[in-house]
């Protein structure tokens, strides 16, 4: 298991959330990974960042079996969503075919699916509660 926290997240959490008991932990498990190699490149988003901004936190999870997990600590309770892809060949990019369609597996929280684009926020968002949340994503 890889535990990822960012300094920025810690600082933000410390400034905004009081008491600390309201800082929530989110564990995301990705299962059903087809190839036991490469890296799951995972981004965590909130409503403000989901559509077109960078992730608020992220994790690069080495794949050795058919699942990986990560825990984001000290989140402000609320709605979040995950976008991820499996960088099977570890080239740091989401590979596409010559017409621009992804050739590496990808997924969204809630196992949401897109329609001519990424899954929509409303389909991918889930609640992270103050007492901690576990969210499981199954690769297609």
């Amino acid at each position, binding site marked *: 298991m890889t535990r990822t926290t960012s300094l920025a997240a810690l600082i933000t959490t410390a400034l905004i959330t009081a008491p600390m008991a309201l800082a929530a932990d989110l564990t995301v498990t990705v299962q059903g990974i087809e190839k036991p190699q490469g890296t799951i490149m995972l981004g965590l988003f909130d409503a403000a960042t989901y559509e077109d901004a960078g992730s608020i936190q992220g994790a690069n999870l080495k794949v050795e079996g058919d699942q990986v997990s990560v825990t984001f600590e000290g989140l402000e309770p609320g709605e979040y969503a995950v976008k991820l892809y499996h960088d099977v060949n570890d080239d740091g990019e989401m590979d596409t075919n*010559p017409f621009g*369609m992804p050739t590496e597996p990808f997924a969204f929280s809630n196992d949401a699916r897109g*329609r001519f684009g990424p899954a929509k926020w409303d389909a991918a968002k889930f609640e992270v509660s103050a007492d901690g949340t576990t969210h499981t994503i199954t690769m297609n």
Partner: protein
Amino acid sequence: MDFTRRHFMETGIGLGVAGSVLSAGTAAASPAKTPAWHLGYQNAPINGFEAAEMQLAYGQPPADLNGALFRNGPAQFQYGDQYASHWFDGDGLVHRIAIDDGKAVHKARFVETKKRREELAANAFLAPGFGTLGDERFSVEGPDDVNAANTSVLMINGELHALWEAGSAFAMNADTLETKGPKTWRDDLKGMPFLAHPKVEPDGRIWNLAVGGSRVGIYRISASGTLEDFGLVDIGRAAYIHDWTMSARHLIILVQPWINENLRPPVVAGFEWQPQHGLQMLIVDKDDFTNQRWAQAPARMFFHTGSAWEEADGTLKFDAVLYKRPVLGVGGGADEIRGEWAGRQSAEDGVLTQIVIPTRGDASLIETGLIGEFPQVDPRFRGKARHLTAMVSGPSQIQPGSTGLAVQDWRSGRSDVFDFGDQRMVEEFLFVPKRGGSSDKDAWLVGTVLNLKAGKSEVCVFDAARVSDGPVCIWQADYSWPLGFHGTWA
């Protein structure tokens, strides 16, 4: 038309068939209020058709005709009171008619696509498509999510593939017709389109195109199914490309002036007829995709070509069924699916035409006068000079579709035609080489026909050299299946 023979055949078939009750689990016959031809647009049973021997209804099967006719076509036209909005968007039903020792056994299975699974579960059309807007609830993360796998079939080294044109080929077990899944030729080509009209050289090497707007990918695949090469060319505009052609040395990509710069569903709504561009042809060297030249012909629309060959002086000749303006794709058979038909418009007629591309200057069009569709050539002569093209011909004046089979001899300039009359709707016929023959006149023509009088589907065999003599033999199923598109013989 040979009335005597036709009358004889009707009689022969009438005698050869016991009973008229449809067997359980088959497509229901049209209600009395709908026309007889609507049988061709009825849903197939959900699980397809179990293997069933067809009855020899006429003639004597050729002793050397052993193999299987595989065919594909849309076969889901209705969920409840909801009709499919375009013929091209029905789920693919793959048929195998195995012919051996004078017997014919039919079997068919739907290709198990995401579209098929989800629509069947919902009992509703959901996926966007060529002529379908689709339902917002249906997820689309790549072309194969909307793949109808309904257009043709290709056998490679014993493995069957159901073909569409905007997504992957779907691999299938050639015996059980069970779906294996989308075919990925190379990891970096996952999800690339694979046209439903691959070209197979006489030695088994396969060429095909991937069309994505104005960019076209070229596949070269060995007879054993290994991708040997893939390259990209630019054709300048997003023309509709359903088919193309090939000589021994060149690929000929026809860029018709039916343009769609906005490939959003329903795709057909985005097409514009721009005849000012004419019919342009990009000629690509098979050994060097960067070695290209363009040729130009008057504006025409087309779906299908026969095959090309190259004269000693470099002149390219090929045949295609050409239309003066876009047809079918626009209306999409939506009326026919509902059992309605507005009548035949002569502007809709496709004419078998030879296109001659000189080494310099514009191409010329030589019209044969034969009206029809689904041109086919002998597989031994693909890319080579040959005598014949066979095609469905004889457009009916009283119903959709055609009632005859025609063969054009390019060397004599003559055509040979057999017309079944309005009791039969004729589908694509394929050349099957006779054992020991060396010319494309030494071939059987094998194809399917929907017998409207009997309400049953049939497989017919003709002698390619004597089509006007009528069928050599006819096998009739105990049921009917919907009209389809294309097939292969293996």
